[in-house]
């Protein structure tokens, strides 16, 4: 299972990539995608919407199930992956690349410390099985 080192993680299986311009790219992990199976629909917030750390910001729906998306960080949505909304199955193919969900401006950099490192997330996954 791929868990990129440079990303930070939540217990709800979202990842955040903290960029130097004070924004974060947000997506879901390979573990989440494998649990869900074939993704068929996504609901994402609009650009300009606020998301809050730990609160839901959308849903991802697979053939078999629907899962809430939880924001890893608080901030304003500056971008969302319109290509992914058109072709949700892309999420199954590359959850860390073309399957990114939204970009937000980070309101509070301290929140980043509350996220797990790749090693911590790996250890967390091992507790789930």
């Amino acid at each position: 299972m791929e868990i990129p080192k440079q990303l930070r993680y939540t217990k709800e299986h979202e990842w955040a990539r903290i960029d130097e311009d004070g924004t974060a790219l947000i997506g879901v992990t390979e573990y989440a995608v494998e649990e869900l199976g074939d993704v068929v629909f996504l609901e994402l917030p609009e650009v300009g919407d606020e998301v809050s750390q730990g609160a839901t910001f959308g849903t991802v729906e697979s053939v078999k199930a629907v899962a809430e998306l939880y924001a890893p960080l608080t901030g304003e949505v500056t971008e969302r992956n319109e290509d992914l909304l058109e072709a949700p199955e892309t999420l199954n193919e590359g959850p860390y690349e073309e399957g990114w969900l939204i970009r937000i401006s980070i309101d509070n950099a301290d929140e980043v410390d509350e996220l797990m490192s790749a090693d911590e997330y790996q250890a967390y996954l091992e507790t789930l099985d």
Partner: protein
Amino acid sequence: MSDSLRTVLYDRHVALGARMVPFAGWEMPVQYTGVKAEHTAVRTTCGLFDVSHMGTVLLQGGRATEALERLTPWPMSKLKPGRARYTVMLNEAGGTVDDLIVYRRGNEDWFVIWNAANHQKNLDWTAPILTEYGVTLEDLTSDTALIALQGPDWHSVWEQALPGAAFPDKRFTFTEHDGMLIARTGYTGEDGVEIWCPNARAIELWDRLIDAGATPCGLGARDSLRIEAGLPLYGHELSDEIGPIEGGVGFVVHKDHHGYIGEMALQRDPRRCLAGVRMTGRGVPREGYPVLTPDGETIGAVTSGSYSPILDTGIGLALVDRKKSGYDGTSQAVAVEIRGRSFDAELVVPPLHKN
């Protein structure tokens, strides 16, 4: 999962990369590559399912046929040997104990398949009747594998895998040879066969059918296929509380058959009926989601939901109030409430993929 039962094909599933999940006390493959690809394979080419977990029993001797006529709302004495019938067992309140398929092998010789989740319940339910009619029940579930070959290409795959082997030539008939029972039945809405064989023969049969081009399919695709085909699943469209007429399988009740358990209480003109649901836009209906009129009045609830790779839309089955919905078997606009928001949908007559 350590307490779960495993079918004889377990190692094959793991080797094929299946995700195994607990289901009705068994550890079963939910998917191999993905539900969409497997579902599409069954509709366009041919899929292979291990459904060995299903409860399989032989009812033999005594007055076995009469016992089935007590247990089901159908005159089983009229069924010819070599033919199969989909039926239900009713409880005293007219609800459904289980749905099942009976295969008549001889005068007092019946092969019966029912739901894994209800296996013990059914054994308990039938025991007093079988005793009364002097019938012997042999439980074959653990010793027998059941492999379903389903889809438009099933026959060419069969011929390639088992050249010259006899197969049943009509729907709902079966044939037996070489210790196998091969029935022209299934649970996908496609043509195909279901093959019972002793566990010792199952791996070779499975491998031959895979080598001949059948796509291995898990319980995920089995569920989305049966929803698309409008076939009920016990616990969703049928239950101890939901009888066969409201559950959409009223054809199992024969109007001239009498004396069966549940006859008096059977709801012949039930308040609710089963309808197919097709989303006209986004969203996937899931069990329990309310079904509304376009004006927002609740008329029922989704009993099963999925996504149809064939229609590229959310689909489901729903129990709706006949009066409030005015559902008359023609398409009509409704809405499904999905997580607090209303999404446009239609009530349609299954099978949904042919509509």
